[in-house]
Protein backbone atom coordinates (compact mmCIF):
# COMPACT_ATOMS: atom_id res chain seq x y z
CA UNK A 1 0.00 0.00 0.00
CA UNK A 2 2.70 2.36 0.93
CA UNK A 3 4.57 1.68 -2.27
CA UNK A 4 1.46 2.27 -4.32
CA UNK A 5 1.00 5.67 -2.78
CA UNK A 6 4.60 6.67 -3.22
CA UNK A 7 4.74 9.90 -5.17
CA UNK A 8 7.64 11.94 -6.40
CA UNK A 9 7.03 15.60 -5.87
CA UNK A 10 9.17 18.23 -7.52
CA UNK A 11 11.44 15.50 -8.71
CA UNK A 12 14.67 16.59 -10.40
CA UNK A 13 13.67 20.24 -10.74
CA UNK A 14 14.65 22.38 -7.77
CA UNK A 15 12.10 25.01 -7.01
CA UNK A 16 9.20 23.43 -8.79
CA UNK A 17 5.80 24.36 -7.41
CA UNK A 18 4.43 22.18 -4.66
CA UNK A 19 2.05 19.60 -6.01
CA UNK A 20 -1.53 19.64 -4.86
CA UNK A 21 -1.78 16.93 -2.25
CA UNK A 22 -2.58 16.49 1.36
CA UNK A 23 1.00 17.31 2.29
CA UNK A 24 3.41 18.85 -0.16
CA UNK A 25 7.13 18.62 0.13
CA UNK A 26 9.79 20.09 -2.04
CA UNK A 27 13.46 19.53 -1.97
CA UNK A 28 16.10 21.99 -3.13
CA UNK A 29 19.85 21.90 -3.12
CA UNK A 30 22.21 24.83 -3.34
CA UNK A 31 25.97 25.17 -3.49
CA UNK A 32 27.39 27.39 -0.81
CA UNK A 33 30.05 29.70 -2.21
CA UNK A 34 32.20 32.03 -0.19
CA UNK A 35 33.49 35.11 -1.96
CA UNK A 36 35.73 37.74 -0.47
CA UNK A 37 35.10 41.30 -1.55
CA UNK A 38 37.68 44.05 -1.98
CA UNK A 39 37.34 45.02 1.66
CA UNK A 40 38.23 41.47 2.71
CA UNK A 41 34.72 40.77 3.95
CA UNK A 42 33.41 37.30 3.28
CA UNK A 43 30.07 36.90 1.57
CA UNK A 44 28.19 33.64 1.36
CA UNK A 45 26.15 32.97 -1.73
CA UNK A 46 23.78 30.11 -2.32
CA UNK A 47 23.89 29.10 -5.97
CA UNK A 48 22.00 26.55 -7.99
CA UNK A 49 24.04 23.35 -8.26
CA UNK A 50 25.38 23.98 -11.71
CA UNK A 51 29.11 23.65 -11.29
CA UNK A 52 29.67 21.15 -8.51
CA UNK A 53 32.98 19.48 -7.81
CA UNK A 54 34.18 17.32 -4.92
CA UNK A 55 34.67 19.35 -1.78
CA UNK A 56 31.87 21.80 -2.55
CA UNK A 57 29.51 22.57 0.34
CA UNK A 58 25.86 21.92 -0.30
CA UNK A 59 22.78 23.24 1.45
CA UNK A 60 19.69 21.06 1.19
CA UNK A 61 16.44 22.88 1.83
CA UNK A 62 13.14 21.06 2.37
CA UNK A 63 9.89 23.02 2.18
CA UNK A 64 6.71 21.42 3.42
CA UNK A 65 3.11 22.52 3.42
CA UNK A 66 -0.08 21.01 4.67
CA UNK A 67 -2.31 21.45 1.64
CA UNK A 68 -5.03 19.24 3.02
CA UNK A 69 -8.24 20.13 4.80
CA UNK A 70 -7.22 18.68 8.16
CA UNK A 71 -4.22 19.04 10.44
CA UNK A 72 -1.40 16.56 9.74
CA UNK A 73 -0.23 14.73 12.83
CA UNK A 74 2.82 12.56 13.59
CA UNK A 75 4.57 14.52 10.90
CA UNK A 76 7.99 12.97 10.18
CA UNK A 77 10.37 14.00 7.39
CA UNK A 78 13.17 11.57 6.63
CA UNK A 79 16.10 12.26 4.33
CA UNK A 80 18.73 9.59 3.66
CA UNK A 81 22.08 11.15 2.77
CA UNK A 82 23.06 10.50 -0.85
CA UNK A 83 26.07 8.19 -0.98
CA UNK A 84 28.28 10.87 -2.49
CA UNK A 85 27.42 13.47 0.13
CA UNK A 86 29.02 13.69 3.54
CA UNK A 87 26.80 15.18 6.23
CA UNK A 88 28.13 18.40 7.73
CA UNK A 89 25.45 19.81 10.02
CA UNK A 90 21.77 20.54 10.29
CA UNK A 91 20.50 24.02 10.97
CA UNK A 92 18.28 22.58 13.65
CA UNK A 93 20.40 21.07 16.39
CA UNK A 94 17.43 18.95 17.53
CA UNK A 95 17.03 17.04 14.32
CA UNK A 96 17.46 13.30 14.72
CA UNK A 97 20.11 11.44 12.82
CA UNK A 98 21.00 7.85 12.18
CA UNK A 99 24.52 6.54 11.77
CA UNK A 100 23.52 2.95 10.98
CA UNK A 101 21.37 3.23 7.86
CA UNK A 102 18.16 4.24 9.63
CA UNK A 103 17.92 1.53 12.29
CA UNK A 104 18.54 3.70 15.32
CA UNK A 105 17.83 7.39 15.68
CA UNK A 106 19.01 10.01 18.09
CA UNK A 107 20.88 13.25 18.57
CA UNK A 108 24.30 13.05 16.95
CA UNK A 109 25.92 13.70 20.32
CA UNK A 110 24.18 10.63 21.80
CA UNK A 111 25.06 8.14 19.07
CA UNK A 112 28.10 5.90 18.89
CA UNK A 113 29.77 3.90 16.17
CA UNK A 114 31.30 0.45 16.69
CA UNK A 115 35.04 0.14 16.21
CA UNK A 116 36.77 -2.89 14.80
CA UNK A 117 38.16 -3.74 18.25
CA UNK A 118 34.66 -4.01 19.75
CA UNK A 119 34.64 -0.64 21.50
CA UNK A 120 32.40 2.22 20.43
CA UNK A 121 33.37 5.78 19.65
CA UNK A 122 31.28 8.92 19.54
CA UNK A 123 29.56 9.45 16.19
CA UNK A 124 30.93 12.16 13.94
CA UNK A 125 28.99 14.15 11.32
CA UNK A 126 30.69 12.04 8.63
CA UNK A 127 29.02 8.93 10.07
CA UNK A 128 25.49 10.22 9.50
CA UNK A 129 23.48 8.15 7.02
CA UNK A 130 20.00 9.66 7.55
CA UNK A 131 18.51 12.79 9.00
CA UNK A 132 14.98 13.04 10.34
CA UNK A 133 12.69 15.68 11.77
CA UNK A 134 9.82 14.39 13.92
CA UNK A 135 7.30 17.10 14.73
CA UNK A 136 5.76 17.13 18.19
CA UNK A 137 2.67 19.10 17.21
CA UNK A 138 0.32 18.67 14.24
CA UNK A 139 0.85 20.81 11.16
CA UNK A 140 -2.28 22.93 10.85
CA UNK A 141 -4.15 23.32 7.60
CA UNK A 142 -2.09 25.56 5.36
CA UNK A 143 0.90 25.37 7.70
CA UNK A 144 4.28 25.60 5.96
CA UNK A 145 7.85 25.36 7.03
CA UNK A 146 11.40 25.01 5.90
CA UNK A 147 14.10 22.61 7.07
CA UNK A 148 17.72 22.50 6.04
CA UNK A 149 20.94 20.64 6.44
CA UNK A 150 24.40 20.95 5.02
CA UNK A 151 26.66 18.42 3.36
CA UNK A 152 29.86 18.25 1.38
CA UNK A 153 30.36 16.53 -1.96
CA UNK A 154 32.68 13.58 -1.35
Amino acid at each position, binding site marked *: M*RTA*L*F*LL*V*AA*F*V*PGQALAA*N*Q*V*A*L*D*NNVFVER*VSTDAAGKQR*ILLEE*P*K*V*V*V*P*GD*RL*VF*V*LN*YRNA*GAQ*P*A*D*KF*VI*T*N*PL*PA*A*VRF*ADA*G*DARSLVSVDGGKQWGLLSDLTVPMTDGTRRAAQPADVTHIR*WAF*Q*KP*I*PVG*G*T*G*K*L*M*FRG*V*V*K
Partner: protein
Amino acid sequence: MTSKLTYMGVIGLTALSSVAATPAFAAGTTAGTTITNTATVDYQVGGVAQGQQSASNNFTVDRKINLLVEEVGTVTTNAVPGQTNAVTTFQLTNSSNEALDFALVASQIVGGTAAHGGTDTFDANNVRIYRDNIATGTIGSWDAGDALVTYIDELVTDTAIRLFVVADMPAGLANNAVAGVTLRATAREGALVGTQGAAITETTGANTAGKDTVFADTAGVTGDIARDASHSDNDDYTVQTATLAVTKTSRVISDPFNNITNPKLIPGAVVEYCIAVANSGSADATSVLINDPVPGQLTFNAGTILLNGTVTAGTCNADGAAGGSYAAPNVSGTIAAVAAGATRTLIFRATVN
Protein backbone atom coordinates in the same frame (compact mmCIF):
# COMPACT_ATOMS: atom_id res chain seq x y z
CA MET B 1 2.10 28.42 13.25
CA THR B 2 2.23 25.45 15.48
CA SER B 3 5.48 23.96 14.25
CA LYS B 4 8.44 25.27 16.13
CA LEU B 5 10.68 23.37 13.72
CA THR B 6 9.66 25.68 10.90
CA TYR B 7 11.14 28.56 12.67
CA MET B 8 14.28 26.65 13.60
CA GLY B 9 14.88 25.86 9.95
CA VAL B 10 15.08 29.58 9.31
CA ILE B 11 17.56 29.99 12.13
CA GLY B 12 19.60 27.27 10.55
CA LEU B 13 19.83 29.18 7.31
CA THR B 14 20.87 32.38 8.96
CA ALA B 15 23.62 30.44 10.68
CA LEU B 16 25.29 30.06 7.29
CA SER B 17 27.54 32.96 8.07
CA SER B 18 29.71 30.62 10.12
CA VAL B 19 31.79 28.98 7.48
CA ALA B 20 33.69 25.87 8.40
CA ALA B 21 37.01 25.19 6.73
CA THR B 22 36.58 23.26 3.52
CA PRO B 23 37.35 19.62 4.25
CA ALA B 24 40.21 18.11 2.34
CA PHE B 25 39.02 15.71 -0.31
CA ALA B 26 41.57 14.27 -2.63
CA ALA B 27 39.85 13.25 -5.81
CA GLY B 28 36.39 12.49 -4.50
CA THR B 29 33.23 11.57 -6.31
CA THR B 30 33.81 10.59 -9.91
CA ALA B 31 32.95 13.24 -12.47
CA GLY B 32 29.58 12.71 -14.09
CA THR B 33 28.06 11.06 -11.01
CA THR B 34 24.49 12.12 -10.39
CA ILE B 35 23.70 12.89 -6.78
CA THR B 36 20.04 12.45 -5.93
CA ASN B 37 18.66 13.56 -2.61
CA THR B 38 15.23 12.28 -1.58
CA ALA B 39 13.24 13.29 1.47
CA THR B 40 10.06 11.56 2.57
CA VAL B 41 7.18 12.63 4.81
CA ASP B 42 5.10 10.27 6.91
CA TYR B 43 2.08 11.73 8.66
CA GLN B 44 -1.37 11.03 9.95
CA VAL B 45 -4.67 12.77 9.50
CA GLY B 46 -7.30 12.18 12.13
CA GLY B 47 -5.18 9.38 13.55
CA VAL B 48 -4.97 7.52 10.23
CA ALA B 49 -1.60 7.07 8.53
CA GLN B 50 -1.57 8.72 5.14
CA GLY B 51 0.45 7.91 2.04
CA GLN B 52 4.10 8.72 2.22
CA GLN B 53 5.18 11.78 0.24
CA SER B 54 8.62 12.18 -1.16
CA ALA B 55 10.58 14.86 -2.95
CA SER B 56 13.87 14.56 -4.79
CA ASN B 57 16.38 16.66 -6.55
CA ASN B 58 19.51 15.77 -8.37
CA PHE B 59 22.59 17.30 -9.90
CA THR B 60 25.67 16.09 -11.70
CA VAL B 61 29.14 16.22 -10.21
CA ASP B 62 31.38 18.13 -12.59
CA ARG B 63 34.94 17.38 -13.49
CA LYS B 64 37.61 18.90 -11.30
CA ILE B 65 41.06 18.92 -12.87
CA ASN B 66 43.74 18.89 -10.23
CA LEU B 67 47.24 17.50 -10.24
CA LEU B 68 50.42 17.79 -8.27
CA VAL B 69 54.02 17.53 -9.41
CA GLU B 70 56.42 17.27 -6.51
CA GLU B 71 60.10 16.75 -6.31
CA VAL B 72 60.86 13.71 -4.17
CA GLY B 73 63.39 14.06 -1.37
CA THR B 74 63.98 17.81 -1.51
CA VAL B 75 67.71 17.37 -1.97
CA THR B 76 69.86 18.18 -4.95
CA THR B 77 71.17 15.38 -7.11
CA ASN B 78 74.94 15.18 -6.94
CA ALA B 79 76.64 14.51 -10.23
CA VAL B 80 80.21 14.42 -11.45
CA PRO B 81 81.40 16.11 -14.65
CA GLY B 82 80.82 13.89 -17.67
CA GLN B 83 78.40 11.61 -15.82
CA THR B 84 75.69 10.03 -17.90
CA ASN B 85 72.23 9.32 -16.56
CA ALA B 86 72.17 11.58 -13.52
CA VAL B 87 68.71 11.09 -12.00
CA THR B 88 66.33 13.52 -10.31
CA THR B 89 63.07 12.17 -8.91
CA PHE B 90 59.56 13.58 -9.06
CA GLN B 91 56.07 12.42 -8.16
CA LEU B 92 52.93 13.11 -10.18
CA THR B 93 49.55 12.79 -8.46
CA ASN B 94 46.20 12.86 -10.22
CA SER B 95 43.87 14.55 -7.74
CA SER B 96 41.13 15.02 -10.33
CA ASN B 97 37.88 13.12 -10.06
CA GLU B 98 38.44 11.38 -13.38
CA ALA B 99 41.19 9.27 -14.97
CA LEU B 100 43.29 11.47 -17.24
CA ASP B 101 46.36 11.54 -19.45
CA PHE B 102 49.20 13.85 -18.51
CA ALA B 103 51.61 15.45 -20.97
CA LEU B 104 55.11 15.78 -19.53
CA VAL B 105 57.82 18.31 -20.30
CA ALA B 106 61.24 18.48 -18.66
CA SER B 107 63.01 21.76 -19.23
CA GLN B 108 66.14 23.55 -18.12
CA ILE B 109 66.15 26.52 -15.82
CA VAL B 110 68.07 29.41 -17.35
CA GLY B 111 69.97 31.34 -14.68
CA GLY B 112 68.41 32.31 -11.37
CA THR B 113 68.34 30.44 -8.12
CA ALA B 114 67.91 26.69 -8.38
CA ALA B 115 65.54 24.63 -6.22
CA HIS B 116 68.12 23.89 -3.55
CA GLY B 117 70.11 27.11 -3.58
CA GLY B 118 72.99 28.06 -5.78
CA THR B 119 72.74 29.77 -9.13
CA ASP B 120 71.96 27.84 -12.27
CA THR B 121 75.15 28.04 -14.31
CA PHE B 122 74.97 25.25 -16.87
CA ASP B 123 72.53 23.10 -18.80
CA ALA B 124 72.47 19.34 -18.58
CA ASN B 125 72.43 17.37 -21.82
CA ASN B 126 70.04 14.76 -23.16
CA VAL B 127 67.26 15.41 -20.66
CA ARG B 128 64.71 12.57 -20.64
CA ILE B 129 61.72 11.47 -18.53
CA TYR B 130 61.18 7.94 -17.29
CA ARG B 131 58.23 6.44 -15.45
CA ASP B 132 59.07 4.12 -12.61
CA ASN B 133 58.08 0.56 -13.36
CA ILE B 134 56.53 -0.73 -10.17
CA ALA B 135 56.49 -4.32 -11.41
CA THR B 136 60.14 -4.92 -12.16
CA GLY B 137 63.55 -3.66 -11.16
CA THR B 138 64.19 -1.46 -8.18
CA ILE B 139 60.92 0.22 -7.33
CA GLY B 140 61.35 3.90 -6.63
CA SER B 141 64.76 4.08 -8.29
CA TRP B 142 65.65 4.55 -11.91
CA ASP B 143 66.68 1.34 -13.62
CA ALA B 144 66.65 -0.35 -16.99
CA GLY B 145 63.07 -1.54 -16.55
CA ASP B 146 61.65 1.99 -16.41
CA ALA B 147 59.91 3.33 -19.50
CA LEU B 148 60.99 6.42 -21.41
CA VAL B 149 57.83 8.55 -21.63
CA THR B 150 56.54 11.84 -23.00
CA TYR B 151 53.10 11.49 -21.42
CA ILE B 152 51.32 9.38 -18.84
CA ASP B 153 48.42 7.34 -20.12
CA GLU B 154 45.21 6.95 -18.13
CA LEU B 155 46.34 7.83 -14.63
CA VAL B 156 43.45 6.95 -12.35
CA THR B 157 42.21 9.29 -9.65
CA ASP B 158 44.02 9.68 -6.37
CA THR B 159 47.06 7.89 -7.72
CA ALA B 160 50.66 9.00 -7.50
CA ILE B 161 53.40 7.75 -9.77
CA ARG B 162 57.13 8.30 -9.66
CA LEU B 163 58.91 9.95 -12.54
CA PHE B 164 62.63 10.33 -13.16
CA VAL B 165 64.23 13.16 -15.05
CA VAL B 166 67.48 11.70 -16.35
CA ALA B 167 70.23 13.84 -17.88
CA ASP B 168 73.89 13.71 -18.88
CA MET B 169 76.42 16.10 -17.39
CA PRO B 170 78.83 18.03 -19.60
CA ALA B 171 82.54 17.47 -18.95
CA GLY B 172 84.84 20.02 -17.37
CA LEU B 173 82.43 21.49 -14.83
CA ALA B 174 83.62 23.24 -11.69
CA ASN B 175 82.83 21.89 -8.25
CA ASN B 176 79.37 23.00 -6.98
CA ALA B 177 78.17 24.14 -10.40
CA VAL B 178 74.35 23.87 -10.53
CA ALA B 179 71.89 22.98 -13.29
CA GLY B 180 68.17 23.34 -12.48
CA VAL B 181 65.48 21.33 -14.23
CA THR B 182 61.70 21.70 -14.21
CA LEU B 183 59.17 18.93 -14.70
CA ARG B 184 55.76 20.13 -15.80
CA ALA B 185 52.70 17.94 -16.26
CA THR B 186 49.56 19.08 -18.06
CA ALA B 187 46.27 17.21 -17.80
CA ARG B 188 44.91 15.85 -21.09
CA GLU B 189 41.69 14.04 -21.88
CA GLY B 190 41.75 10.42 -20.81
CA ALA B 191 39.53 7.59 -21.98
CA LEU B 192 41.61 6.64 -25.03
CA VAL B 193 44.08 4.00 -23.88
CA GLY B 194 47.47 4.09 -25.55
CA THR B 195 47.04 7.54 -27.05
CA GLN B 196 47.69 10.92 -25.57
CA GLY B 197 44.34 12.64 -25.23
CA ALA B 198 43.39 16.08 -26.49
CA ALA B 199 44.00 19.24 -24.51
CA ILE B 200 41.36 19.97 -21.88
CA THR B 201 39.48 23.23 -21.88
CA GLU B 202 37.71 24.64 -18.90
CA THR B 203 33.96 25.17 -19.23
CA THR B 204 33.44 28.90 -19.45
CA GLY B 205 30.23 30.82 -19.33
CA ALA B 206 26.98 29.06 -18.75
CA ASN B 207 27.00 25.72 -17.06
CA THR B 208 25.59 22.75 -18.92
CA ALA B 209 23.36 20.12 -17.42
CA GLY B 210 26.03 17.50 -17.99
CA LYS B 211 29.60 17.21 -16.83
CA ASP B 212 31.50 20.49 -16.90
CA THR B 213 35.19 21.03 -16.37
CA VAL B 214 36.73 23.14 -13.62
CA PHE B 215 40.48 23.65 -13.27
CA ALA B 216 41.48 23.42 -9.62
CA ASP B 217 45.26 23.06 -9.72
CA THR B 218 47.51 25.33 -7.70
CA ALA B 219 50.37 27.40 -9.08
CA GLY B 220 53.62 25.55 -9.69
CA VAL B 221 57.03 27.05 -10.36
CA THR B 222 57.47 30.57 -11.69
CA GLY B 223 55.41 30.93 -14.86
CA ASP B 224 52.99 28.13 -13.98
CA ILE B 225 49.83 29.84 -12.79
CA ALA B 226 47.00 28.30 -10.77
CA ARG B 227 43.98 26.84 -12.58
CA ASP B 228 45.70 26.11 -15.88
CA ALA B 229 45.42 22.29 -15.74
CA SER B 230 49.15 21.97 -15.24
CA HIS B 231 51.53 21.78 -12.32
CA SER B 232 55.28 21.79 -12.02
CA ASP B 233 58.23 21.57 -9.68
CA ASN B 234 61.96 22.17 -9.83
CA ASP B 235 64.92 20.04 -8.95
CA ASP B 236 68.60 20.44 -9.66
CA TYR B 237 71.93 18.81 -10.24
CA THR B 238 74.96 19.93 -8.27
CA VAL B 239 78.39 19.05 -9.56
CA GLN B 240 80.50 17.29 -7.00
CA THR B 241 84.03 16.87 -8.19
CA ALA B 242 87.50 16.54 -6.72
CA THR B 243 89.76 19.58 -6.91
CA LEU B 244 93.36 18.52 -6.50
CA ALA B 245 96.40 20.63 -5.66
CA VAL B 246 99.93 19.17 -5.57
CA THR B 247 102.78 20.50 -3.47
CA LYS B 248 106.29 19.15 -3.30
CA THR B 249 108.64 19.69 -0.38
CA SER B 250 112.06 18.32 0.49
CA ARG B 251 114.30 18.08 3.51
CA VAL B 252 117.81 16.82 4.15
CA ILE B 253 117.88 13.68 6.22
CA SER B 254 121.62 13.14 6.65
CA ASP B 255 125.01 13.81 5.17
CA PRO B 256 128.17 11.64 5.33
CA PHE B 257 129.88 13.91 7.89
CA ASN B 258 127.17 15.35 10.16
CA ASN B 259 124.98 12.30 9.78
CA ILE B 260 121.51 13.24 11.02
CA THR B 261 122.62 16.18 13.14
CA ASN B 262 122.12 19.39 11.20
CA PRO B 263 122.85 17.65 7.89
CA LYS B 264 123.95 19.75 4.90
CA LEU B 265 123.24 19.33 1.21
CA ILE B 266 126.65 18.05 0.22
CA PRO B 267 127.37 15.19 -2.14
CA GLY B 268 126.38 11.99 -0.44
CA ALA B 269 123.57 13.68 1.55
CA VAL B 270 120.17 11.92 1.63
CA VAL B 271 117.18 14.08 0.65
CA GLU B 272 113.54 13.16 1.37
CA TYR B 273 110.90 14.41 -1.05
CA CYS B 274 107.23 14.68 -0.11
CA ILE B 275 104.62 15.05 -2.82
CA ALA B 276 101.31 16.03 -1.20
CA VAL B 277 97.96 15.84 -3.06
CA ALA B 278 95.24 17.93 -1.42
CA ASN B 279 91.59 17.51 -2.46
CA SER B 280 89.58 20.68 -1.81
CA GLY B 281 86.59 19.46 -3.84
CA SER B 282 83.40 17.76 -2.72
CA ALA B 283 84.01 14.29 -4.10
CA ASP B 284 86.66 11.68 -3.44
CA ALA B 285 89.44 11.49 -5.99
CA THR B 286 90.25 7.87 -6.70
CA SER B 287 93.21 6.16 -8.40
CA VAL B 288 95.39 9.23 -7.99
CA LEU B 289 98.60 8.50 -9.93
CA ILE B 290 101.66 10.46 -8.86
CA ASN B 291 104.66 10.59 -11.14
CA ASP B 292 107.86 12.45 -10.24
CA PRO B 293 111.13 12.39 -12.22
CA VAL B 294 114.16 12.30 -9.93
CA PRO B 295 116.58 15.12 -10.83
CA GLY B 296 119.75 13.97 -12.60
CA GLN B 297 121.95 15.20 -9.71
CA LEU B 298 120.32 12.69 -7.38
CA THR B 299 120.22 8.93 -7.19
CA PHE B 300 116.97 7.31 -6.11
CA ASN B 301 117.22 5.20 -2.99
CA ALA B 302 115.49 1.93 -3.70
CA GLY B 303 112.77 0.79 -1.31
CA THR B 304 112.13 4.23 0.18
CA ILE B 305 108.76 4.97 -1.41
CA LEU B 306 105.90 5.42 1.08
CA LEU B 307 102.37 5.87 -0.22
CA ASN B 308 99.16 7.28 1.29
CA GLY B 309 100.89 9.23 4.06
CA THR B 310 99.39 12.20 5.85
CA VAL B 311 100.16 15.88 6.36
CA THR B 312 99.75 17.82 9.59
CA ALA B 313 99.61 21.60 9.41
CA GLY B 314 101.36 21.61 6.06
CA THR B 315 104.18 19.30 7.20
CA CYS B 316 104.57 15.81 5.83
CA ASN B 317 104.37 13.22 8.57
CA ALA B 318 106.70 10.91 6.66
CA ASP B 319 104.25 8.08 7.19
CA GLY B 320 102.41 5.79 4.82
CA ALA B 321 102.80 2.30 3.47
CA ALA B 322 105.55 0.93 1.26
CA GLY B 323 104.59 0.78 -2.37
CA GLY B 324 105.01 2.53 -5.67
CA SER B 325 107.72 1.86 -8.21
CA TYR B 326 110.82 3.39 -9.77
CA ALA B 327 111.60 3.33 -13.47
CA ALA B 328 114.51 5.71 -14.06
CA PRO B 329 114.15 8.56 -13.78
CA ASN B 330 110.54 8.40 -12.58
CA VAL B 331 109.19 7.59 -9.14
CA SER B 332 105.51 6.71 -9.39
CA GLY B 333 102.72 5.46 -7.17
CA THR B 334 98.95 5.28 -7.11
CA ILE B 335 96.93 6.40 -4.11
CA ALA B 336 93.62 4.54 -4.04
CA ALA B 337 91.56 7.50 -2.83
CA VAL B 338 92.04 11.05 -1.64
CA ALA B 339 88.82 11.87 0.18
CA ALA B 340 87.15 15.26 -0.17
CA GLY B 341 89.00 17.68 2.12
CA ALA B 342 91.90 15.28 2.73
CA THR B 343 95.58 15.35 1.78
CA ARG B 344 97.65 12.25 0.99
CA THR B 345 101.35 11.95 0.24
CA LEU B 346 103.99 10.02 -1.67
CA ILE B 347 107.41 10.11 -0.07
CA PHE B 348 110.79 8.93 -1.38
CA ARG B 349 114.43 9.46 -0.68
CA ALA B 350 117.38 10.11 -2.96
CA THR B 351 121.12 10.67 -2.49
CA VAL B 352 122.98 13.75 -3.80
CA ASN B 353 125.59 12.72 -6.35
